[in-house]
């Protein structure tokens, strides 16, 4: 049992500390598969530290939106972070929003990033913003159906409650509808975090970019915030996957300090495994053409729909 304020600060600290590490680990795993040495897993920290020391070069065309967007997006993503269980199901601010609110907070972050992409008046920015919103729109129906499948199973959209109930169920939580919904959400996670085959995070060609094209005009401190925001979002999406579908090992309100430490370790292992899977998917696929993506995301839609239907069949609706 830890006090609420401490718990909130701890959660913020863990999210901020772990997200660059996760990115570094994924990069390292990818390098391993590509038979490269690859940068150190701490490289993202160095990058951000360096960017934070640099000045931002600002386009002459921009308005206040360009300056405000990284701040609003980052704040929205961090707010979502306080609503998602990380290593403990007891969230002092968990009452403020549920899974749907988290989805819409991510949408708020995306909206401002995309808005800023149009502000500099470059065609690359517009291209990125347009594609980002396109992918987001394709993701949304499958995402909502998966949320429904999970929420119907548990009886609530409250994330703490979902994790707690499912981890209490033990292995029974591995029902067919949970597995189907996981596959659907995994594909969605690829799209949400901008990974191959949807988007290539390490591309250097403006015409093929989605997320990178949107933030092309950012530099220095602002870029640091944008990059960190993207890493935090990635960590949070993985945490959602981990704690909705594999919640075992998560600490509950009554756990002691030792149990919390174990829960944290278990959590890190879980997200590293998800990161590993992502790296495997990324290495073994090529980026898809933008207009083939509806196919990929309809697969996800089908899985989420099957999850829902199988729930109705199993529970004998």
């Amino acid at each position, binding site marked *: 049992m830890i006090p609420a304020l401490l718990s909130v600060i701890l959660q913020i600290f863990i999210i901020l500390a772990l997200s660059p590490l996760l990115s570094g680990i994924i990069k390292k795993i990818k390098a391993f598969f590509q038979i490269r040495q690859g940068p150190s897993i701490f490289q993202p920290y160095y990058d951000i530290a360096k960017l934070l020391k640099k*000045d931002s070069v*600002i*386009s002459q065309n921009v308005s206040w939106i360009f300056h405000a967007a990284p701040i609003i997006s980052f*704040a929205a993503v961090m707010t979502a972070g306080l609503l998602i269980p990380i290593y403990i199901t007891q969230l002092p601010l968990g*009452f*403020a929003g549920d899974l749907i609110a988290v989805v819409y907070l991510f949408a708020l972050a995306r909206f401002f990033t995309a808005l800023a992409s149009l502000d500099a008046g470059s065609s690359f920015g517009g291209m990125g913003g347009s594609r980002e919103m396109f992918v987001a729109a394709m993701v949304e129906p499958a995402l909502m159906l998966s949320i429904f499948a999970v929420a*119907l199973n548990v009886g609530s959209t409250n994330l703490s409650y979902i994790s707690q109930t499912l981890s209490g169920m033990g292995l029974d939580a591995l029902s067919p509808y949970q597995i189907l919904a996981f596959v659907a959400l995994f594909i969605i996670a690829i799209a949400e975090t901008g990974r191959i085959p949807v988007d290539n995070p390490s591309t250097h060609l403006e015409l093929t970019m989605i997320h990178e094209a949107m933030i092309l005009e950012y530099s220095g401190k602002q870029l640091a915030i944008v990059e960190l925001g993207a890493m935090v979002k990635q960590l949070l999406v993985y945490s959602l996957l981990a704690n909705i579908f594999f919640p075992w090992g998560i600490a509950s309100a009554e756990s002691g300090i030792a149990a919390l430490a174990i829960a944290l370790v278990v959590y890190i292992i879980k997200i590293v495994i998800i990161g590993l899977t992502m790296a495997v998917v990324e290495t073994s696929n090529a980026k898809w053409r933008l207009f083939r993506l509806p196919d990929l995301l309809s697969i996800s839609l089908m899985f989420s729909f099957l999850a829902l239907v199988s729930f109705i069949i199993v529970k004998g609706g």
Partner: protein
Amino acid sequence: MSVNYLFPGIIAFYLIGAASAVIFNKKDAICAYTSFTSAAIAALLGIIFSISVIFGDTFSFDLSTGSYLKFGFFIDRLSAFFILVISISVFAVSIYSIGFVREYFGKKNIGYLGFLYNIFIISMILVASADNAVMFLIVWELMSVVSYFLVVYEHEKPETRKAGFIYIVMTHIGTGFIMMSFLIFVGTSGSFSFGTFAEAGKTMTPLLKDLAFIFALIGFGTKAGIVPLHIWLPYAHPEAPSNVSALMSGVMIKIAIFMLIRVFFEFLGASQAWWGYVVLVLGTLSAILGILYAVVESDIKRMLAFSSIENIGIILIGIGASMIFFASGKTVLASIAAIAALYHLLNHSIFKGLLFMGAGSILYSTHTKNIEELGGLIKKMPKSAILILIGVLSIAALPPFSGFMSEWLTFQSLLLGFNLNESFPMIILSISAAILALTGALAAYCFLKFFGIGFLALPRSKHAEHAKEANTPMLIGMGIFATLSILLGILPFYVLPVLERIATSFTGNLDSFTFGNFATFSIPSGAISSEIISLSTPVILAIIVIFMLILSMILFLNNRKKQPVYETWGCGQPVSTSRNEYTATAFSKPVQVWFKNLYRPARETEATYSTSPFLKESFKFESNIEQVIEQYLYEPVVDFVLTRSRKLLIIRTGSIHTYLSYIFGVLVILFMYVIAGGSS
């Protein structure tokens, strides 16, 4: 002062507004001030009046003369809620209008506009308060005709006249169906009074009930703009002056929703579950088709009109779900879904009003509705830009703004469908939720395009370059709505109890939302089997603001030097101009490709070459999309009617003798009918 005097007072102030518009017809400025100020005062009285009815007693006022001619006013909580929605909108729009009509000074007749504007509002209030079918049809017709005159206010433009024509035809088809629906009730109850309709609804045969339902749905659905009856809306709303568009999209189409609730719940008792499914499916269809056409539209007012179809769809999803729950006896669920619908209705009237006023401001200062000619307005009209951005964030359902609150509630009420424990509703409600999610994402796409292309980067035309900030009354009008959009998002615990009083007046349940610490509210526990589902938008807002403050402190305290400013990166190309910017058409192109089966885009390119076939001299690109419903549903019908009526031309000889013989012939037939005892 008693409530009983307020109602005539409201009508009187609108009449004063109308009269002063006529009296000061020749003096534009005085005319604008008197007629719109008087409408604003009336609206304030309307707000007080409707709140006192919602929390007090039903208001009724009988004007019957003799036993035959019965008419009067009947305002219960449901009517009062709609009068509240009308009055809030009218208050802000009237203030805005004082500034907006300056555009027309010296060009158009302001007295005419002011007169029609006030009469239009009176007609809407009377529609919401009529207690009798005959009186209702008269004021409904008044509303339709006056709004037609408002649509064709700028009648010198041919497209405006065409829009007006489509509007007046469609609205009369709708009125015809409403009349048929009412006649079914009158046939059973023997009276035109609405009070007897509910009794009639109980005793009618199932077939008559179904017919009354279908006719009412078509009749009021036409006014509401439900797909496939919506075709007039994207023509009429954009052509009207923007202050009128704000009222038409914000309020008038909601009046149809009010009557749908009245007829479905109160007259017909919402007894059939399949009615609910029909409404839900039509709502879902309207939501998705409305937003799909809005996304690819580049006329800003037409885009807003399509988005109104979408939002009516979202409201109907809530009402449909509520009807499904009500028919299976789950009144708690029914009232939650109804509250979601009413909440969205209130929110939509405000943010859509705001956006139409915003579009009006853009039109006022740039004289163009074409988004491809805008750009950079955030620097030219900074105050309007912030207000419009608030509207955009609300309509895109982003937390913590108002649209988020009502969409969240709609999702929750669809999710609550699992309490029915039947597979069919569960699947239908989930599919509807998935489509609603897609709609929400596309709405964000659409309004990102609107704000991003319209307001950011560099101006794309001379019009946008010379744009000026909107004048003070316009900013005040928009400011009221922007404030309300935020408040409705973060103060649900003030709004929900009010909506609950209204929703329970027709769903009749007693469980209520529970409100906890930190402005949390939870779904009534009677509605869900297990756990709490709670939300607190004020807390979300507070966390976001705290993070923003910390971040901006880190960013700006760290910033000692002046930030270097440089050109936008253009791949090494020379200085970027507005010609390098992404266009609105390109921005929404992915959606057009994705849904090419729906849009059936046709493109035409034309290039001329100089000397070598690799050097283009000029290039012309034209792209059009089809309005599927108009082309494949309406055009065949129109063609059919036109060809048949052309065949009937043979009886029109042009000779007066022939016509007289027709009249004689008809008279003879009628006499024979009467003599044969045909009529009883």
